[in-house]
């Protein structure tokens, strides 16, 4: 990984009561669609999943309190990364 790696991924905790459920996954997917390259969601002991796919994110079965990492592949997607992290941070506005 290059020096920029840490700028390309950020860790965040799922704080909302319902976890990363279908509707919150849909919100992430909507933002991720704007990215020029891939956006990944990582959870310990799981394969990286595609942030553009609701089904993929649901397979992580993240409940409240789960720690996830959001990773982008292209630095120009930094805004997307920030937006997703903010969304998760604020509990998906629920």
């Amino acid at each position, binding site marked *: 990984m290059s020096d920029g790696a840490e700028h390309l991924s950020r860790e965040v905790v799922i704080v909302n*009561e*319902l*976890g990363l*459920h*279908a*509707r919150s996954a*849909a919100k992430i*997917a909507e933002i991720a669609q704007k990215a020029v390259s891939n956006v990944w969601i990582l959870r310990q002991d799981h394969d990286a999943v*595609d942030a*553009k*796919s*609701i*089904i*993929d994110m*649901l*397979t992580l*079965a993240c*409940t*409240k309190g789960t720690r996830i990492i959001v990773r982008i592949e292209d630095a120009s997607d930094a805004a997307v990364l920030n937006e997703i992290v903010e969304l998760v941070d604020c509990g998906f506005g*629920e």
Partner: protein
Amino acid sequence: MKKNSMADSENQEIVITGIAASPGICIGKAYLVDREGVNVIKKYHIPGSDIEPEKNRLRNAVVKARDELRSIIEDSPAEFRQHTGILETHVVLLEDKMLYGKTLEMIERERINAEWALKKVVSDLKRVFQDMTDPYFRERAADIVHVSDRIFRNLSGVEAVNIKAIDKRVILIATDLSPAQTSQIQLERIKGIATNGGGAASHTGIIARTLEIPAILGLRNATKIVKNDDLVILDGTSGKLIVRPAEETLLEYEERSEVYEAHRARISRSSQFPAQTLDGFTIPILGNIDLPEEIVAVRDYGGNGIGLYRTEFQYMGRIGFPTEEQLFERYRDVVEIMAPYPVTIRTLDINGDKTMPYVCDIEEPNPVLGLRAIRYCLKKPHIFKIQLRAILRAAAYGNVRIMFPMISNCDEVRAAKALLRETATSLEKDGVKFNPNIDVGIMIEVPSAAVMADVLAREVDFFSIGTNDLIQYLLAIDRSNQYVSHLYKPLHPAVIRMLKRVADEAHRNGISVYMCGEMASNPIHLPILLGLGIDELSTNPQSIPVVKNAIRSLSLEGMDQLMEQVLEKSSDMEIEHLMKEKYGHLLSSAVYTPSLG
């Protein structure tokens, strides 16, 4: 069951029993709502030159599926709108990479037909979800299946069974009805509903009762036994589905159906009049509802208000909690339409059979004794307060009472009341229109609350006895357990004594005592309930006319002596005999089929 002898009993009468979810009898032709044709999927190879057209076939099927779902959402009648959220999620899932994208890839890579590729993708996805421990995530597999079935149908050219397009009067037989399907039911076409899955409290059950269509749910294998166009008798009162009935059975049920309809017509003609005893005492008879739509039935049946508004359903069948505005609007509708009659709103009571996937973060070995109702709400005050705000706001538009469920000690009542006061203060600060002066009551459904009735009576304006749970907890009987359900006895002397204690302590402290459990809807129990001095009864809307009718044949005079006799008895059998001997006329077998023990 009779599965093994199916071959040689092809044309024989078969009786299968399920959960009686909506009363009434109907006789007619079966109409199977199933995914016929979809189950048989052939695999074949696609030559290289045809790969692109094959992918287009999938694309077209998905586009068509999307359009179908959109039009179902748009065509849904207003009262089903709150249930369309799930359909909108389905629209998004249709084009999800993991489903759509993967299927396209598989067509290309393995050079196979679209159906087979989709089937493989779906079964892989199903496996991933089915292995999950969290029930919410596990159940998402069902969403993927619903969505992919729609694509399959479009691929194979099998017409979706469009409930809306049914052009004859039929009895629907289905594995389960999806919210999309129930929202398409047309009264003039559908005589009855029978499904393999579901329970009395399921969405389908509520819709059937609201529409007054006889229904049996939880039949397990109805779709395997019944064939399209089979003649079936559906008795939604007893939960019996009779397939290919013999001639004598048919005659018997035709007669029963007539008697039932005639009796129902007769008592519903008089249902708008008060339930006045022969010696001139009037008892208000209220209705229990799950959905705001049911107030229409309560009014039609002559109900004097809502004695139990279960508020869980607005939290179910959706993703995420409802907002204060959403709750307020629904409550206000009910309150305004029922005014000046009272609407008794029971605060959120989630439990074992009404779990909401998005709050189920703990798996409980014994949910009936677990974190439910007031216990859950006091643990999650931020969720509870949203509901309390909505209730106090709705109270400005009519006659509202609030009622806390599953109270088992005094502290819970005080804590709930404190939260209610805090809510009122915050509403005042926000300058929102609301009414803080409402009756506050508790459900008496845990034996410890009944024992503490003298103390609890000083904390509240009324008690409402929930007999279903009270009897279950008092007698330690799980009603849904087939091995012990026969021991569930509302006339058990211990039950009568406990009810007497609650009623006496309420009256001694100058508060009212109501009953909203199933016990109140069985006519044979009414003399005892009058004898106990229960001030109001609340039943399911369909039973209001029956209860009113029965009360008109009774007198309060002599009830004291009856109670003395009842309290001397040592078993439920003895009490039952006494009641049948003195009040046998209350039991009209044609209308009331006792479902209890």
